[in-house]
């Protein structure tokens, strides 16, 4: 954004004209008004930044405070660094186990979503065949179904699934995460593959590459920017998924972080191991923060991509 504004360093003549003669009355009026507005608007910007930033920093510093201090003096800094919160959270509160569960599920589901989503998107974008439009709209329609309406039948689909246990299992959760990420992923990848030039794929085909080989070795590498955006989108969405595990993953051994933390929070009310909970929340946030710090631009672009289309 800043580069954008700096790039527009033209019209110096216009700027000069503005401050001299002729329209001076209006200009001075505009000037003071701008000044007041600037103070006001800048103030608002800072206030909002504090309102958003402080609670998040508060989690960080509270994770080093004793539970009693977190409650009785919420704004104070830690008296000393209570590192035991972190180890308590990891071991006693089972955050370590939940972290591993989340890692397995999200690892599997993000990979699966990306592979299946880009395969479907590629075929729907690049091949004409009867039913192409129908399938595309079938996928896209999924974006408008309220998940709450689907979870009840879904619960029984999973419970009664022949052969493979799906409720409260890794494979069940992975399959469901993939299924619920497909609508947006297919929508996004289809429009992305449409923007790529056809000539490269044609050249590969003429050189004798099969359809599958063309896809994996030529088209996928070309689609990398799109894959990164949608990959981050899916990672964040699935890491933070709350409702689906609440309903479909009710075995404490298989808890993922979001539901596990909610469970701890719901049980303890205003007493209990708040230090451990804060440390647990930090642990749950770390991978996401890491991704956000490194890929800030892509994260912002990826999460808003759907609405800009």
């Amino acid at each position, binding site marked *: 954004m800043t580069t954008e*504004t*700096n790039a527009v*360093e*033209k*019209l110096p003549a*216009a700027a000069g004209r*503005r401050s001299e003669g002729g329209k001076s009355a209006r200009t001075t009026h505009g000037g003071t008004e*701008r000044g007041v*507005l*600037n103070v006001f608007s800048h103030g*608002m*910007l800072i206030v909002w930044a504090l309102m*958003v930033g402080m*609670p*998040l920093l*508060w989690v960080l510093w509270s994770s080093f405070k004793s539970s009693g201090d977190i*409650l*009785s003096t*919420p*704004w104070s800094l830690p008296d000393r660094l209570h590192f035991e919160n972190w180890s308590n959270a990891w071991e006693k509160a089972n955050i370590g186990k939940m972290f591993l569960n989340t890692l397995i599920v999200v690892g599997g589901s993000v990979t699966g979503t990306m592979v*299946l*989503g880009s*395969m*479907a998107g*590629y075929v729907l974008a690049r*091949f004409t065949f009867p039913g192409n439009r129908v*399938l595309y709209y*079938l996928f896209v329609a*999924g974006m*408008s*179904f*309220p998940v*709450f*309406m*689907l*979870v*009840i*039948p*879904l619960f*029984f*689909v999973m419970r009664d699934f022949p052969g493979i246990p799906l409720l409260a299992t890794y494979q069940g959760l992975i399959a469901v995460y*993939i299924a619920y990420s*497909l*609508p947006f992923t*297919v929508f996004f990848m289809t429009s992305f593959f449409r923007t790529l030039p056809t000539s490269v794929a044609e050249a590969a085909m003429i050189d004798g590459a099969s*359809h599958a080989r063309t896809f994996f070795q030529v088209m996928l590498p070309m689609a990398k920017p799109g894959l990164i955006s949608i990959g981050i989108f899916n990672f964040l969405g699935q890491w933070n998924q709350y409702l689906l595990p*609440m309903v479909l993953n009710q075995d404490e051994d298989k808890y993922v972080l979001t539901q596990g933390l*909610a469970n701890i*929070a719901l049980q303890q009310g205003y007493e209990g191991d708040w230090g451990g*909970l804060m440390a647990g*929340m930090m642990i749950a*946030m770390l991978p996401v923060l890491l*991704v956000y710090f490194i890929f*800030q631009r892509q*994260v*912002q*672009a990826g999460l*808003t991509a759907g*609405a*800009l289309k």
Partner: protein
Amino acid sequence: MQHGKYRFIVGFLALPLLIYAIFVISPFVQAFQISTTEWSGLRGAAKNIGLGNYDKLLHSDEFWNALRHNIVMLVLVPIATLALGLFFAFMLNVGGRARRGALITGVRGASFYKFVYFFPQVISITIISVIWFNIYNPDPHDGMLNSLLGAVGLDSLQSSWLGARSIALACIMVVMVWANVGFYVVLFSAAMASIPREIYEASLLDGANRLHTFFRITLPLLWDTVQTGWVYMGIIAMDAFALVQIMSVNMGGPDGATDVVPLRLYQTAFRDSQFGYAAAMGVAMLVVTLLFAVLTMRFARRERIEF
């Protein structure tokens, strides 16, 4: 060649389509069917009662209470979120003082502000709920908000927040706005960046102040994005499940003051095992969501401006 093409198409589509059909499409269809039954979840024990659940729903005070809260959210939360989002985005992109010869500039540190504002978007709703649970702690000394108000001498504003019937719902809505403004700041910033600077400069030279610039130029040119954003935000407002479940007194309390349809649905299904009735609530949610989207598209439609 043709043969290879179709084998490839089938091979690539089969698995995604299968997973999608089993876990999304089939539940969608079954939801309607289950909603016409009385069912405790036992295999083969569903009793068909036609539209009985819908009839029950229409006469349930609990349901209307919850739905009314969702509709209040549906109206107020998008207005507040989008207004703040537009305001901040405008300030970040156009609000800076003229410097280095450029008339139209963003404020300094715009990307830093966006980085901070967007933060709640990447963390889970559970964590947001726990944070705000502590902010709203009703104790006048322990509560984050209450102790802050006390420290600056505004003791009279101290409140039991989520424990107070009259403002509990508003407290939940504040969290939704807080969590989502950043998304719209980033979204609108991207849209504003694509508006040619010359338009702003021309209007400034003609003596327009920033209020004029905003309402006569920025807003009309962003209307499409605002409309999409409105639908997005409405869908979020129809949810509110995790916030209410984790933060509110007695799940939806005090005294039903923060109850929402998703929480009603969840409790009816997974606590009371009335799956038919809960499925009917799900269908009602679909209807409300679609109605909202259609109405928004219908009434917000303006002539599209090309630039």
